[in-house]
């Protein structure tokens, strides 16, 4: 990690000068109030259950579910207050999907302790019926807020959002998906209706903040990182909404060297992250929360 890249906001510096050196002495009792949440995430794993072959030109020996689990377990030992999330396109890309239709992908994600995932366009590759048939193999929820599944077999089975309680922190997670028309055959997605993700996201986030009283709001997006056209993407979604802390993206298979820090509609900072594809990387975002910053109105320090 490049330390020079970190964005240090004024909050921390202000407190530092305000209280001076004495605060350092009392750090031991302070930790009781501070909360630490670790978010681990993947996207576009595309049925890559085995590591890449050691002979692979680009990713020799990298990836693989069994190694990912080792890493997740190690991180959870360090901080059990962790969520494991996926931003869609779980299916399609190796014979594991062609042979077993996604059964193994969902079973393994359940074993790895995934808490939630959203739906990517390739998750319709065996039709909406194929996705529906695999749901019993997933011990986690598929979340999507902008597909209306009312007239499909998935009616009532896909939640728009889910609230997690981890270590005294309420975390609201919701999902948004890409426009399917033109990308997926209608025969596959059937009567699924796509709605504009921006308006939906604003409604959901309002609910998560005001009704559910979430401390953190995370969006699982399969929109894609950034397009030059008007097509909605993660950066546009970030800039047109408020109260989202983190957008975990997918679809564009973007390998970000580090999470992007961008501004939301209120000028506050939002993190957008994506980790390429095929399970080569695992994204890790650590949130530290306490009761202080709300009072002084300052933002968080972001270190990426």
């Amino acid at each position, binding site marked *: 990690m490049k*330390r020079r890249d*970190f964005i*240090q906001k004024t*909050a*921390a510096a202000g407190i*530092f000068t305000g*209280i001076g050196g004495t*605060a350092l002495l*009392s750090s031991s*009792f*302070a*930790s*009781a*109030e*501070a*909360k630490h949440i670790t978010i681990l995430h993947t996207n576009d794993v595309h049925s890559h259950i085995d*590591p890449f072959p050691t002979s692979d030109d680009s990713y*020799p*020996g*990298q990836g693989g*579910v*069994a*190694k990912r*689990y*080792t890493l997740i*377990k190690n991180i959870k030992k360090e901080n059990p207050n962790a969520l494991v999330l996926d931003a869609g396109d779980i299916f399609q890309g190796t*014979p*594991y999907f*062609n042979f077993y239709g996604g059964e*193994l992908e969902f079973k*393994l994600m359940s*074993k*790895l302790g995934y808490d939630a995932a959203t739906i990517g366009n390739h998750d319709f590759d065996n039709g909406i019926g194929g996705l529906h048939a695999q749901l019993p193999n997933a011990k986690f929820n598929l979340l999507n807020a902008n597909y209306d599944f009312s007239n499909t077999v998935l009616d009532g089975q896909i939640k728009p959002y889910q609230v997690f309680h981890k270590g*005294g*922190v309420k975390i609201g997670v919701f999902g948004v998906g890409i426009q399917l028309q033109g990308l997926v055959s209608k*025969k596959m997605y059937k009567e699924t209706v796509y709605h504009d993700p921006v308006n939906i996201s604003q409604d959901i986030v309002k609910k998560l903040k005001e009704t559910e*009283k979430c*401390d953190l709001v995370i969006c699982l997006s399969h929109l894609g990182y950034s397009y030059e056209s008007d097509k909605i993407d993660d950066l546009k979604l970030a800039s047109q909404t408020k109260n989202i802390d983190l957008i975990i993206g997918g679809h564009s298979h973007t390998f970000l060297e*580090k999470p992007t820090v961008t501004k939301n509609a209120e000028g506050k900072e939002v*993190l957008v*992250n994506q980790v390429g594809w095929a*399970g*080569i*990387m695992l*994204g890790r*975002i*650590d*949130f*530290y*929360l*306490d*009761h*202080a*910053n*709300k009072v002084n109105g300052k933002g*968080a*320090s*972001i*270190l*990426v």
Partner: protein
Amino acid sequence: MRNILFILYGIVIFSFSGCKYQNKNTKVPLAVSKIEGKQLSIEKSLTEDEEIKTFVAPYKDRIKDEMNKVLSYTPNTLSKFNGEYNTAIGNMMADALLEITNPVFHQRTGKNIDAVLLNHGGIRSSINRGDITTKTAYNIMPFENEAVVIELKGTQVLKMFEYLSKSEVAHPVAGMQLTLTEDNQIKTGRIQGKKVDLNKSYFIVTNDYLMDGGDHMNFFAIRESETYLDYKLRNVFIDYFKKHDTINPVRDERFIKQ
């Protein structure tokens, strides 16, 4: 140095909140004071979790067995780069599609498929001399595209010929014959050995990707009907290989330039 500074900042923030709010105002909402983000690489050197490996093993073995099943044999290596306007591998794929899907289409509709059009870019690998296995079918067709029969008016069939004359690449065809002049004009264009009747409808089998305008095949958009055969192209090739113990396609005169 910055490293150390940052750690200090973190401690200070916690200290401050701890002192001030520990015993009184618990209604002050939580707020984020610090965020750290990084990308972790799933490195080659990471140990594989044994439980996961054991769980995956039987699934993996079944795929391996299935993939290695010998379905047929080819005495020659077949490459899509071996030929200008038609290639042995492309001819085989187009012929296979016609042979395997026509009975399905006929049974459903009582009609027959007139011609086949695939795209050169859709031939995803060559076939090596020797045994043809299930894996071969996955190599040449890794995608899930399926066979669909499109009913085109004669006028649109001419548009299809025009597309082929301009694309200058060996798109796999069957059931048609197209000869181009030196300057890429259509010299002859026939379907099932006959001139195209502008008032007649023709049934062309292709895949859903091309039907939807893939590879700029926009002429498929103006169609009379479409019939999905619920047959993945990969399975068409698997069934074709199973049916023929030797595959030895050749280049021919179906699409040529004079």
